[in-house]
């Protein structure tokens, strides 16, 4: 568990992997017949795996474009006679897709903003400063990651929706996710890699602690920013239970919530419910999938370290 929590391991992974690839390459030159067969077997297994993982996504796109749902095997292939964009129009008339995307964006954006601003500060304090309570704070951070959020669902709902009156508000949505502890650990790890002597030198030169933080520490941590943003983004964008509890007003619901409500309540009344659901699903999945494909390099390191939250 320590390994997975430790972003140092994760950060080192990228390098380890290139080294590994080189090693594999040299080995690959010495292959004899038997291990060539093994290699072919590996590719077969891996590509079957990839097919199983990707097929539902392909089917999602195909299904969202069908005029009438075709569940037969032939329906898995595009049929020019049965293609339409109407499903996207249909789902958009039932739930406002753009508004849903904007709400999801505000929810995720708020979480990212809080995580980056406050996460940098704690990360720096934990890595480079000595203060009473540092050990406790670090232990808390690890502990927080294994507390199942669902146990807290009922008390949080009572507190946030009833006591603080934050139901149907972005603040109520964001609050329980505001600072992502995994992201804080990533920041801490980056600051740990900076030699302490650099900060000590600045202190000897008479720079104040805040000046050091602003002019030395924060610029140094810039490479970690993209990783943290992507890592933090997955959670709120895909979260269903909490925004579902806290928002009853359709105009405030993130897309995941309004799509789920459509799925459970009103899908039966649509002309082509599957087509409409799948069209909505494509819209919800697309931003995350595209971002991930573009930035997949940054996901490798960060996601290992997100291990504990799962």
């Amino acid at each position, binding site marked *: 568990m320590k390994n997975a929590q430790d972003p140092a391991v994760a950060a080192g992974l990228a390098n380890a992997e290139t080294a590994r690839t080189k090693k594999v390459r040299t080995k690959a030159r010495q292959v004899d017949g038997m291990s060539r067969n093994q290699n072919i077997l590996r590719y077969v297994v891996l590509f079957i795996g990839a097919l199983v993982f990707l097929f539902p996504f392909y089917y999602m796109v195909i299904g969202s474009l069908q005029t009438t749902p075709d569940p037969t095997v032939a329906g898995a292939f595009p049929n020019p006679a049965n293609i339409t964009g109407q499903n996207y129009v249909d789902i958009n008339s039932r739930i406002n897709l753009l508004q849903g995307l904007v709400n999801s964006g505000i929810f995720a954006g708020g979480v990212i903003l809080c995580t980056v601003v406050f996460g940098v500060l704690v990360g720096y304090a934990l890595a480079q400063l000595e203060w009473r309570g540092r050990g406790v704070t670090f232990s808390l951070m690890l502990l927080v990651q294994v507390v199942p959020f669902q*146990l807290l669902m009922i008390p949080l709902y009572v507190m946030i929706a009833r006591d603080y009156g934050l139901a149907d508000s972005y603040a109520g949505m964001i609050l329980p996710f505001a600072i992502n502890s995994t992201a804080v650990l990533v920041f801490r790890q980056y600051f740990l890699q900076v030699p302490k002597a650099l900060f000590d030198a600045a202190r000897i030169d008479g720079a104040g602690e805040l000046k050091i933080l602003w002019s030395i520490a924060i610029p140094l941590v810039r490479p970690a920013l993209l990783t943290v943003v992507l890592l933090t983004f997955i959670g709120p964008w895909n979260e269903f239970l909490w925004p579902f509890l806290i928002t009853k007003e359709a105009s405030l619901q993130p897309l995941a919530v309004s799509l789920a409500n459509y*799925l459970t309540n009103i899908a039966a009344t649509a002309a082509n419910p599957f087509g409409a659901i799948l069209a909505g699903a494509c819209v919800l999945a697309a931003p995350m999938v595209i971002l991930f494909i573009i930035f997949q390099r940054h996901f*490798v390191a960060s996601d290992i370290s997100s291990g504990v939250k799962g």
Partner: protein
Amino acid sequence: MSTTVSSGSVTPSPAARPTQPGGGGPRRGRRRQLLGRNPLGLLLSAPYLIFVLLVFAYPLVFAFYMSFHDYFFAAPGAVVDRPFVGLANFQEVLSDPAVIRSFGNVGIFLLINVPLTVVLSLVLATALNKIVHARTFLRVAFYVPYVTASVAVVGVWIFLFSGNGLVNQILGPLAPDPAWLINEQWAMPTIAIFVTWKGMGFFILLYLAALQNVSDELYEAAATDGAGKIRMFFSITVPGVRPATVLVLLLATVTGANLFTEPYLLTGGGGPNGASSSPVLIMYQRGIEQGEPGIAAAIGVILVIGVLILAFIQRKLAGGDES
């Protein structure tokens, strides 16, 4: 956890550290003893600490409090009597067949999800680790379900596994009747397979990372001794990635305990007849829909104790002492 933030117990003795570098008189020394060398650290961490107190510590205590009281929702600020009821909520929960069934369902879920996840992700990660071409494509392919919202992929699965869906069309006469998600025997296994499919990319990555720590020399030595590939897999790879396996077991347990979206959407609220309900789903139904938060909190407390016990057993069995 031995250091505490409380400053009351600290007795400052001015003579204690006379040679500390940069010490600026007794006043500064005292402050340093109370707050540490860089008190700024506490200030910088304050927002996070407040967040943890507000969103984790307090609700956790509140959940335990609720589970021992006849708690009900009231208008904000209204003074209402919420009597202490001892273990009554727990008694009610534990004698409710629907709750018992939901815990049993988590058991079914774990029996399917854990072995599938461990075996398949280790096999795929080992294969992925040894190949040269198409690594990025394959890693992305495995990973895409993990980063996608459950709500989005649930739609496709309903379509795929419906009565005349593609899966049944391919299976033909072998298809279960009634269809997967409305079949009492198959509803929970289908959910378990869905969750396994969705989460596996993450575990493949976890194993891939663990495999980097298994030394090549071990394999070379084993090869010199004439060990076969399969023998090497079980004698070197499997023990080598044991810490990752412990983590997989733990995370699968937590996932099982947290199941909500899948039974809520895939099987229309834990149907048929509660065959796929989960404890969190019942917490939602009892706590929010029926307005009995005390009951819901009691389920939550049992759930967390159960998870902790399972996690402890798993760690013992898997033999990993990594904390």
